[in-house]
């Protein structure tokens, strides 16, 4: 018998399966699940955006675009970044990608040589370490602390540096913790980044979803701007996950290198989606704000609800996740989530799916209506009661 496994690229073979994937398979088998487990908005893509894509199709916009994306879209991206976050980029510093996901991959591939190290604060989004591994890089994890609001401190960063460190990967507002970093927080990191010539890959896909202060990009520090590769996209801000549209902002040298990979692997991002993106950036500000306000009310509702249930919950300042600590239950993250699923048919994501630093936490998404959150909370409540009464077999 042929051992097909032996044909596989060893890095691919050895990639750990995503903890989220495993949990999805579990949850998917159960009928009537109340899910608080998704990482995508529940809102419909605003109609004017959808209409722009339909119009693009009607007008026959069905061809490839230039590799880095439509010039008009890149111009709108620059205008948008300037308007919203005061970042100065020119069209040749923009690469339109198939979601932020492609951006993560391109940044790693274009920069990493085998053995190069990437500093990754965790808990973190699940795609980073695989992207690093596939590029031959080595991930150096930093465990962030809830006490610090899941921020990266200069001490932590310095302690993780070696002479092979090339990239610092940041994701604020953060999936899964909802943590953010303010301008003052970043200012402490900037001298270190400058001194050691680190490249910062900053995943800013949740930039629009900040609730307590305006978003600050680390690329807004002139001293290190050209050392920053910004990853952003339309999925979260505009409720456009299925469109697969994102972009990279960086120094032209980096953009050229990433575009080299992009042109052969992808060719160009979906053409209709690019036209929709132009419309979203031109006329979407009001729609974004409406969604942000909805998330804000949901966040408050959920955090208050969880705290009342006795699950100590850090008040997240961005994204659409809360990350309550479940250590008081004596269960591991996996046990908690699996039992919550089997006992109460409620799905959350175990924190350890986002790295070891997530152990003892669960990720609950509030990309749900308040009615759905209420139902979820009541299931969690009855689960905690069962636990207290010793009615749950671990």
């Amino acid at each position, binding site marked *: 018998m042929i051992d097909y496994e032996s044909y596989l690229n060893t890095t691919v073979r050895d990639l750990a399966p*995503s903890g*989220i994937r495993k*949990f*999805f398979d579990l*949850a*998917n088998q159960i009928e009537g*699940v109340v*899910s608080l*487990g*998704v*990482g*995508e908005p*529940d809102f*419909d893509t605003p109609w004017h955006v959808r209409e722009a894509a339909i119009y693009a199709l009607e007008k026959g916009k069905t061809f490839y675009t230039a590799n880095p994306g439509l010039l008009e879209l890149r111009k709108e991206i620059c205008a948008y970044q300037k308007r919203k976050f005061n970042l100065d980029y020119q069209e040749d510093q923009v690469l339109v990608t198939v979601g932020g996901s492609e951006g993560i991959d391109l940044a790693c591939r274009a920069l990493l040589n085998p053995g190069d190290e990437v500093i990754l604060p965790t808990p973190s*989004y*699940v*795609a980073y370490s695989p992207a690093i591994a596939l590029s031959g890089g080595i991930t150096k994890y930093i465990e962030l602390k809830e006490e610090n609001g899941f921020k990266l401190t200069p001490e932590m960063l310095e302690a993780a540096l070696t002479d092979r460190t090339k990239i610092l990967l940041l994701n604020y507002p953060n*999936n899964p913790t909802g943590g953010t970093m303010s301008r003052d927080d970043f200012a402490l990191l900037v001298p270190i980044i400058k001194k050691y010539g680190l490249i910062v890959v900053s995943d800013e896909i949740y930039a629009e979803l900040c609730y307590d202060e305006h978003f600050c990009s680390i690329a807004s520090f002139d001293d290190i701007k050209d050392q920053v590769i910004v990853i952003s996209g339309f999925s979260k801000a505009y409720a456009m996950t299925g469109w697969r549209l994102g972009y990279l902002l960086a120094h032209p040298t980096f953009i050229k290198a990433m575009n080299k990979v992009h042109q052969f692997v992808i060719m160009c991002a979906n053409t209709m989606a690019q036209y929709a993106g132009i419309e979203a950036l031109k006329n979407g500000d009001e729609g974004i704000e409406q969604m942000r*306000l909805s998330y804000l*009310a*949901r966040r*408050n*509702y959920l955090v*208050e*609800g969880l705290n009342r249930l006795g699950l100590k919950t850090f008040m997240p300042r961005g994204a659409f996740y809360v990350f309550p600590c479940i250590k008081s239950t004596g269960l591991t993250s996996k046990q908690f989530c699996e039992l919550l699923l089997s006992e109460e048919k409620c*799905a959350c*994501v175990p924190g350890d799916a986002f790295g070891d630093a997530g152990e003892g936490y669960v990720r609950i998404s509030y990309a749900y209506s*308040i*009615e759905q959150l*209420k139902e979820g909370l009541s299931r969690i409540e009855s689960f905690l009661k069962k636990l207290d009464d010793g009615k749950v077999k671990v």
Partner: protein
Amino acid sequence: MEEKLLQLIEKQARYSVSDLAMALQESEENILETMSELERKRVICGYHTLVNWDKTNKEKVQALIQINSTPEREYGYDRVAARIARYPEVDTLYLLSGSSEFIVEVSGKTMQDVAMFVGSKLACIEGVTGTSTLFVLKKYKKAGMLLEDNEDRQERLVVTP
């Protein structure tokens, strides 16, 4: 806080006071007080349910009536409007710019009912100089809600990164 409260309950009147308190980070007393105050000022004018009667067995027809009218010295259109608005058959009444002065939404059991009401009541009101009745054939959207929503939102996966 008032504006945020109004935005929340405009789309969903059934939130409990405690839900609203949690969502707005306010005390329940504060929410109650604010709501009473808004009711008193008639910023909140009611907590209605959006019913699509077409889906029930109840007989109901609706019409939009354009009304022409002449203004009165000192009162403008307000007194005519008050006379029109008194009738329970009148669901909605707006003063408009353009070729007719008012538009009225009227409902009744049958088309005859509505026609009778327009002919024998609305048209005879002092200050009303003409009417034109447009019967509603089908309703698609009301108060921001699609009455038939055939979009499929079940597609979202249960757990995603």
